[in-house]
């Protein structure tokens, strides 16, 4: 066999290098496109919301009045900001313990034959479109909530301010519970991965000093995985804050001061649902359109703050306190 001469080899090498370079350039462009899209979106939102901020100043963010009638327009979105926080808070309060329970069961308790099908089913929950949850919530789930949770609570605990009012089933609480169901697949499947990544040597060490299964999970497994679990919760929160369709269908869509979340059993509004409800009426160039773009900007900033805040907590608090976490 004739050995390839030097020139040929060099040619191939040269070709390979350019191929790599080409690939590098391509991937860089693709990666940059994510940034560009974010930038364009941000630019549109900032530019579009300038009129509304000029008109109302800070009272756009901290006002409670909402009057879309032309001529006497007032737009204050504080109730929607608080509504977003309230529904997301309920979602975390209910969804996180359930998700952790699922993750712990799958990783620590379930026999292998159950582990795969159940985790598959949990992840399948994430594939159900939001509007389906909304439809189910609207036609079935809200009556369960109304009859079995809201009416009993409001009958006996109605004197507590957050349970006051006449429950209808289309309110902040129902929206929060639907959100809880919707964040379960995200939080549960990431927590499952986090717990699976806890080295077995940690569990063995704990068992060897006489820990029970519950103690091993509580003091070692969860403690080792806490930063990862925190990350899973933040991703769930991100989903809850931005979720639109199901919430719009269930929250009751109050506007203005009546949307201030004073009781769980009262209809409200979130930032996302207010856009979904109103964008159709916003004609191009109107103050209303600017308002919805301003709401969008607020939502984007909230999401960014959550992510940045979470990142800070993860790198600072967990690292400093826990030593070698991860």
């Amino acid at each position, binding site marked *: 066999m004739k050995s390839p001469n030097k020139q040929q080899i060099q040619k191939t090498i040269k070709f390979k290098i350019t191929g790599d370079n080409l690939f590098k350039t391509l991937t860089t462009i693709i990666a940059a496109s994510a940034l560009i899209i974010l930038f364009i979106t941000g630019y549109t939102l900032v530019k579009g919301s300038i009129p509304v901020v000029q008109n109302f100043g800070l009272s756009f963010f901290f006002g409670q009045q909402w009057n879309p009638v032309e001529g006497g327009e007032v737009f204050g979105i504080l109730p929607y900001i608080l509504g977003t926080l309230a529904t997301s808070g309920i979602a975390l309060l209910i969804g996180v313990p359930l998700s952790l329970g699922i993750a712990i069961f799958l990783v620590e308790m379930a026999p292998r034959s159950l582990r795969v099908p159940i985790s598959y089913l949990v992840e399948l929950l994430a594939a159900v479109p939001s509007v389906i949850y909304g439809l189910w919530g609207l036609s079935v789930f809200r009556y369960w909530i109304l009859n079995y949770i809201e009416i009993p609570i409001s009958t006996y605990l109605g004197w507590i301010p957050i349970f006051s009012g006449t429950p209808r089933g289309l309110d902040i609480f129902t929206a929060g519970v639907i959100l809880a169901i919707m964040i379960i697949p995200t939080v549960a499947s990431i927590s499952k991965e986090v717990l699976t990544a806890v080295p077995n*040597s940690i569990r063995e060490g704990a068992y060897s000093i006489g820990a029970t299964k519950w103690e091993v999970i509580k003091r070692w497994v969860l403690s080792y995985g806490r930063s990862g679990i925190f990350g899973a919760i933040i991703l769930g929160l991100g989903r809850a804050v931005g979720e639109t369709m199901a919430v719009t269908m269930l929250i009751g869509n109050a506007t203005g001061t009546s949307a201030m979340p004073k009781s769980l059993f009262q209809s409200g509004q979130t930032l996302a649902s207010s856009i979904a409800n109103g964008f159709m009426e916003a004609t191009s160039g109107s103050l209303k359109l600017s308002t919805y773009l301003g709401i969008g900007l607020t939502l984007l900033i909230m999401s960014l703050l959550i992510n940045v805040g979470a990142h800070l907590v993860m790198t600072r608090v967990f690292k400093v306190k826990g*030593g*070698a976490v991860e």
Partner: protein
Amino acid sequence: MTSTQEQNISKPKPDQLQQEIDPTAKMRAINVDVWFGKKQVLKSVNLTVKPNTVTAIIGPSGCGKSTFLRCFNRMHELAPNAKMAGQILLDGKDIYERQIDPVQIRRRVGMVFQKPNPFPTMSIYDNVAAGLKLTGTKKSKLLDEIVRHSLEQATLWDEVKDDLKKSGTSISGGQQQRLCIARAIALQPEVILMDEPCSALDPIATAKIEKLVIELKQEYAVVIVTHNMQQASRISDYTAFMYLGELIEFGETRQIFEKPKNKLTEKYITGEFG
């Protein structure tokens, strides 16, 4: 499976006859069989562990020595598909009896693992105190005392006394392994099991652990699995040689290394296979 089990129990075992029945034995394994799924990895193994001695288990990789060791504190139960037959006696009582809580057994029979595994989310102090805190010990003065005493026994105190609040994984590998020994000692166990405790360590750290093992037998019975024959001959009083899931020979270390009775043992000791 039950039929094999019965067969094994009814069949007289040469090993069992070899080992005198010693009433002072701290632990005894009697006809221990272990399966992982359908694969039998231990075949009616017998062993006696005397108090205040070091018993070494040697043998080539995959001979079941670690599996066997894990039967002594019921750790092997944690592996999925693991099944066991036979008895392990601690002070004459079978630790596998139904009413016995494995948690209690693991407090009396401590364990040190192949790879140092201090708890990374806990401080050095908490690593040692963790077992006691599980038992509900809350008096900080008592904890301080036990932590100090355990670290001293593990010859680690002088090296870490100023860093007790640092993470358990912030120290070197050899120190980590001694921390794990301190963690086991803190519960004041009766037996300490060591599963190749030096295999991940450098020679100097290994020498320290070996010295420590010899000191530990003043107070505890130590069972150590090792693939290092020199180590076994240096530190142990008794040696068991295992091969393919069976105990081939068990006796005083000097006898095993100088006058092995079994041809297979001799071949392994002289390095003909391994």
